[in-house]
């Protein structure tokens, strides 16, 4: 199953990446444009400007220049042998999107959309954010390009990601806490759509993941596609062959689509996405759309949605704000149904254990979102054994999660911390088998 290592990358123009898709923004049955008529002209304009830009050397060159001089691309890969001991001894390689400017993959998409905003002659950007990483990236791009910026964030998320709220404000953005519904990412998206309908003449909605109405799923994926394009070459260089598995966490699904896409035609490479299993998929407290949801429409796309028998959205739950979303990008729904990708839930406990293990074995604090992919790699490694090569998208860094993790592991001094803490740090993280689940 050794694929021929190709020494030259295959630099697909952005526009070609979506050529296999069905017309009108569908991935098989999934996708579409389920939005108020008022937004259709803006979506049509966006699609036209994006398609032209993606084959315009000036646009492509400007984005490349920014990625090189500002984002810090290409991001490196890091092999993590001490962590790999907890993954059945498989070789584990991390794609370090956490080292990008602003600390996650989100900047790849945001810089692209911010440049498009300028091309469309718009002066204001809005965005939703869950973990705050997309909000920080959007606020950053707005500062860089001189755009007005408003970020919608569920009240619950502003509390658990308080540091990122301050970061966005320092960058000059207005952060609006959203008090409706579950007060998390889904409600922030609702509020962003409401703003967009009212201000679409001047405003671009920088949607932060591969969902929403066409052309967002395809466009956001193409802006993130560089992750897989780079990683494929880097792994070939390091290992001499393609990885057996590519792992990524799946909130809306942008970091996963970004790293998966270049591998779609590599039939030997398994693509596995990890969604938030929260307290466990049978508890009802999770964001396991594929494990429990059924196809429906939310936020402009036909895809898997957690919903009750009346079609009302069910609130999701996860220790990770960035995965706490009841729907998922339509292309993932297509990859699931076509059998090209697999999706599995990872519980809060499993993710936090992986968080702690990577921190203590490799000196890398992952984002809790990314820790779901790491926990997935631990399981897959044990299933596949020592011969396996596992590529993990480390989508972000854990600085924003220090507070959550410190509380989880009872590291914040207080009188009653011994009872309140939920997790336990492994005593000797270097020892084989510490990561086993009982």
């Amino acid at each position, binding site marked *: 199953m050794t694929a021929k290592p190709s020494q030259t990358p295959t630099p697909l123009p952005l526009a070609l990446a979506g050529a296999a898709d069905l017309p*009108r923004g569908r991935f098989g049955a999934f996708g*579409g*444009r*389920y*939005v*108020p*008529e*008022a*937004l*259709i*002209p*803006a979506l049509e304009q966006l699609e036209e400007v994006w398609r032209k830009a993606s084959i315009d050397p000036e646009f492509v060159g400007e984005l490349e220049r920014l990625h090189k001089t500002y984002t810090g691309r290409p991001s490196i890969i890091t092999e993590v042998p001490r962590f790999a001991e907890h993954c059945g001894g498989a070789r584990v390689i991390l794609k370090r999107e956490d080292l990008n400017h602003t600390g996650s993959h989100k900047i790849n998409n945001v810089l692209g959309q911010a440049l498009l905003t300028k091309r469309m002659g718009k002066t204001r950007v809005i965005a939703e954010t869950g973990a705050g990483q997309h909000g920080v990236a959007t606020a950053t791009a707005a500062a860089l390009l001189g755009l007005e910026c408003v970020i919608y964030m569920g009240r619950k998320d502003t509390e658990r990601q308080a540091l990122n709220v301050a970061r966005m404000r320092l960058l000059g953005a207005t952060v609006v806490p959203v008090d*409706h*519904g579950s007060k998390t990412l*889904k409600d922030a998206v*609702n509020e962003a*759509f*409401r703003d967009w*309908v*009212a*201000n*679409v*003449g001047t405003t671009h909605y920088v949607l932060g993941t591969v969902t929403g109405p066409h052309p967002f799923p395809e466009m956001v994926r193409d802006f993130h596609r560089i992750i897989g394009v780079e990683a494929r070459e880097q792994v070939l260089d390091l290992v001499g062959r393609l990885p057996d598995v590519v792992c990524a966490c799946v909130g809306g699904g942008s970091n996963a689509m970004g790293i998966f896409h270049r591998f779609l035609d590599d039939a030997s490479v398994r693509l596995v996405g990890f969604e938030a299993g929260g307290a466990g998929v049978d508890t009802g407290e999770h964001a396991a759309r594929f494990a429990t949801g059924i196809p*429906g*429409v*939310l*936020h*402009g796309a036909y895809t898997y*949605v957690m*919903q009750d*028998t*009346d*079609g*009302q*959205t069910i609130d999701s739950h996860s220790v990770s704000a960035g995965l706490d979303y009841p729907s998922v990008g339509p292309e993932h729904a297509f990859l699931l149904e076509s059998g090209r990708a697999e999706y599995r839930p990872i519980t809060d406990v499993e993710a936090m254990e992986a968080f702690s293990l990577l921190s203590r074995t490799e000196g890398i604090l992952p984002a809790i979102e990314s820790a779901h992919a790491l926990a997935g790699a631990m399981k897959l490694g044990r299933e596949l054994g020592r011969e396996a090569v596992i590529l993990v998208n480390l989508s972000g860094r854990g600085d924003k999660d220090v507070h959550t993790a410190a509380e989880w592991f009872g590291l914040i001094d207080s009188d009653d911390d011994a009872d309140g803490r939920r997790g336990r740090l492994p005593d000797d993280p270097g020892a084989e088998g510490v990561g086993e689940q009982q």
Partner: protein
Amino acid sequence: MSVAPVLEKCRAEGRAALIGYLPVGFPTVEGSIAAMRVLVDSGVDIIEIGVPYSDPVMDGPVIQDAAVRALAVGVRLSDIFTAAEAVAGAGAGALVMTYWNPVLRYGVERFATDLAAAGGAGLITPDLIPDEAGDWIAAADRHDLDKVFLVAPSSTPERLEAVTAQCRGFVYATAVMGVTGARASVGEAAGALVSRTREHTDLPVCVGLGVSDGDQAAEVGRFADGVIVGSALVRCLTEAATPAEGLTALGVLARDLAAGVGRGRS
């Protein structure tokens, strides 16, 4: 049964139709149906029966709040058909206004069957554009139901042509770029949008978003075939101390609005 005859009757009377929105299930299912009856008795010609939905992206705070409260007291999708039957029985047009996912989950064909059986006229679909509505258009045609799609001030001539071609009953013109909610003025965009829409269709064009009193209803009724009122009516119920007071306030506002459309073109 289509709302077309209702709109024709209003036109014959030389006035715009009055169309009132209320969500089913607020404050209770029975309470909302009683409120719809008050609207009909106070001169409202067509009731927009709202389906409460967890993620109403086209709605402002008033209707969001009512939807959340209706869902909290346990309104079910099947209650929509009870309301449609009551409204049709009271002699008004019974159009259902719904986001798309509840219908999708219920089953498009099954929803059309049950709506037609209840005497409902059809659907207004704020987040379903004709381009994505193949299943609904086919089901509506099979069951003789109205298909009311929306046009907006941002709609291009091509969009106006494509959208109006798929409408039956009337065309819903959103007066402003924005979500539902009472506004101090309905704005110039509404009149321009109605004229632009008429270049593409002979269907009645009704205007919604922002109308809150009789004077505004009169103003809009001068150029539109129907005046749609939502948030202002809902607020009568959400802000009332008791359900009875809510119904009283609702009747007062509905009569003011009805008088407004009545004097509109005189």
